[in-house]
């Protein structure tokens, strides 16, 4: 199988490519990057006017498989990822059964191989059953193929357990992803605590609930001299704490999600359960700080936290609605619309946040366009405007607050392991 991508604007951070190039792919690998390449017998993609980027790597998503296949499964989740330009995704362990042992890892890997449209990398649990009490068999998880460990959805509330987890995981050189939330402070809150929660009469989650745990984890990582990755950063002070820690040399990496740089808690108006997410959507000053953190490098990556839920779990009272929103198919347009177009991030920075850095954090050999590497490539038009329509999503779930939004930027091609999976915005 031969593919030639012609005349696209290639942006790659690792190889420092930033200009018009042709890329020749053969047998799943990138074999040549140059000018005026020709291909007689094969697939020629005209990428003129478009950006040719390394395939996006998502370090944080929920595929709901095994256990919650009515929300999403590996097939539908990877279809959705491919449509969003993601070629490699790391799925969180809050499945049923939890990914806290080798057999679940094996199940996910084999199912992904069989049904998957993109590369799937499981994230193992930090603690058995995500209970925050006893460490999971982290060594076994690592050798079975876990790319990171996390109790995502739950914090590791006990500081002593977290200390041991960081210490133990460092021995296996596996990234610990922390969901930072002080549950005593969030205390059944359902949205950001502030004026919006006041006028809706909904119980708030203070920004401090996140920040206290961010601070704790930074202190533990500094004390132990081990790395830590902070998931879904949503507040101004979290950004500030991480920025300071980085200055002190703490080995911290941080992520945010498109909704945290795109929406404020005003999206919850009218009891809009589609805007219910954890951590919650915050205020304008937090959104501005998140964008600043992305721009100055405090926040290393953009992850989706793709969290599919069935309509019946959202068409209920706000208090009992599920937390989370789908994210694969809106990530790129939100990043282009809210980060690149306003001039906060360059395309190079975007590639760093969505390709190279997540790949590094997960220890994958991905996120770059380089001769000799597996061809994971995403081709995007950053000028095309579209009205988001959730009914077009390939995800089984449609829980997006961005339905009806006019956004700029569209994924035209997704190439996974040299195979064209999305062509002209259509899943093959």
């Amino acid at each position, binding site marked *: 199988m031969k593919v030639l991508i012609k005349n696209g604007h290639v942006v790659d951070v690792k190889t420092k490519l930033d200009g018009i190039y042709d890329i020749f792919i053969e047998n799943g690998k990138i074999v040549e990057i140059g000018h005026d390449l020709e291909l007689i017998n094969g697939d020629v993609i005209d990428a003129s006017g478009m950006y040719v980027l390394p395939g996006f790597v998502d370090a944080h998503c929920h595929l709901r498989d095994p256990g919650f296949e009515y929300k999403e499964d590996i097939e539908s989740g990877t279809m959705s990822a491919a449509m969003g330009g993601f070629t490699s995704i790391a799925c969180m362990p809050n499945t049923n059964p939890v990914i806290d042992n080798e057999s679940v890892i094996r199940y996910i890997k084999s199912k992904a191989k069989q049904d998957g449209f993109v590369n799937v990398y499981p994230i193992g649990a930090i603690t058995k059953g995500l209970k925050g009490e006893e460490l999971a068999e982290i060594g076994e998880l690592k050798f079975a193929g876990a790319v990171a460990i996390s109790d995502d959805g739950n914090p590791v509330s006990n500081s002593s357990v977290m200390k041991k987890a960081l210490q133990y995981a460092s021995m296996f050189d596996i990234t610990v992803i922390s969901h930072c939330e002080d549950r005593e402070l969030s205390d059944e809150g359902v949205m950001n*605590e502030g004026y919006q929660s006041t*006028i809706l*009469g909904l119980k708030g989650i203070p920004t401090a609930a996140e920040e206290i745990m961010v601070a704790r984890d930074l202190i533990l990582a500094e004390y132990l001299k081990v790395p830590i990755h902070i998931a879904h950063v949503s507040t101004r002070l979290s950004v500030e704490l991480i920025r300071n820690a980085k200055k002190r040399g703490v080995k911290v990496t941080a992520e945010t999600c498109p909704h945290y740089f795109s929406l404020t808690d005003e999206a919850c108006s009218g*009891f809009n359960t589609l805007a219910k997410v954890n951590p919650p959507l915050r205020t304008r000053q937090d959104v501005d700080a998140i964008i600043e953190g992305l721009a100055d490098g405090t926040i290393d990556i953009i992850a989706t936290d793709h969290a599919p839920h069935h309509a019946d779990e959202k068409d*209920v*009272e706000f208090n*009992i609605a599920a937390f989370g929103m789908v994210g694969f198919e809106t990530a790129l347009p939100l990043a282009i619309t809210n980060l690149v177009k306003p001039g906060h991030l360059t395309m190079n920075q975007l590639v760093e946040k969505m390709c190279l850095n997540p790949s590094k954090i997960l220890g994958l050999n991905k996120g770059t366009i380089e001769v000799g590497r597996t061809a994971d490539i995403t081709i995007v038009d950053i000028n095309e405007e579209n009205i988001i329509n959730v009914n077009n999503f390939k995800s089984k779930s449609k829980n997006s607050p961005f339905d009806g939004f006019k956004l700029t930027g569209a994924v035209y091609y997704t190439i996974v392991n040299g195979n064209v999976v999305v062509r002209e915005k259509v899943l093959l």
Partner: protein
Amino acid sequence: MYLKSKDLLGLKDITAEEIQYILDTAKTMKMILESKNKKTPHLAGKSIVTLFYENSTRTRLSFELASKYMGASSANISVAASSVAKGESLIDTGKTIDAMGTDVIIIRHPMSGAPHLLAKHVNASVINAGDGMNEHPTQALLDMFTIMEKKGRIKGLKVAIIGDIYHSRVARSNIWGLTKLGADVSVSGPSTLLPPEIDKAGVRVYNTIQEGLLDADVIIGLRIQKERQQKGLFPTLREYSRFFGLDDKRLLLAKEDAIILHPGPVNRGIELSSSVIDGERSYINEQVTNGVAVRMALLYLLTRRSSNESIN
């Protein structure tokens, strides 16, 4: 004039003109209520259901009598709050009630926004009889009606709302309604029982009852619930009463002709002293009468609106 929405979900979303219109209509209803023969045919042929997920005595009875005085058929459904999460979904329950030809569903629910969810999925008019910490619009309307009756106006009056503002849907509805009609509203309570950034709603915020009471024309006391103390929001009822209880001495800070309202039921000796409750400036019992009048007005206006719609 017609109300713009088929529902009354809160005072946050309706205009000052609509509020005034409901209050004016309630005047007529009060005359009916005070007459010997409390019967009008305004709601003849209409069916009204109260759907209560929380216990209530006075609000439910008030709606039920309002319906009966105007000749509607009414029925009551009580659902245990504990079954909200595991029982039939609110939407399904609502659609079932709707399918039986109900014109108005009056809902009380422990979760904020439940009436809004219901309203989206039924053809019937939905009246919010209290949702979580969000709104209790008919209570605020009856408070405003009582103020109008006693003071002749709302605009420019200093209204002090005192107590647990954080958990109070009555406070929120009153804040929206009273500020829309031009009152100068303050809230006072322990700092742990004030909702964040409530000042942005256009009210003055105080941490002492004295500041709130100063020169007030109207005082609205709120019920303090014992569970809040158990959750650690204030140390003891004794201390609450010491700093925020309204007694005759503190009442001297308010204007001489200040009136006292309370949504009931009152914890005697805690938020209000018995002498204040039973004093001549307290209109707590009159509020109850006015509640029926306001609810009659609202039921009439909402059903009239829907009848008009079906003719068009």
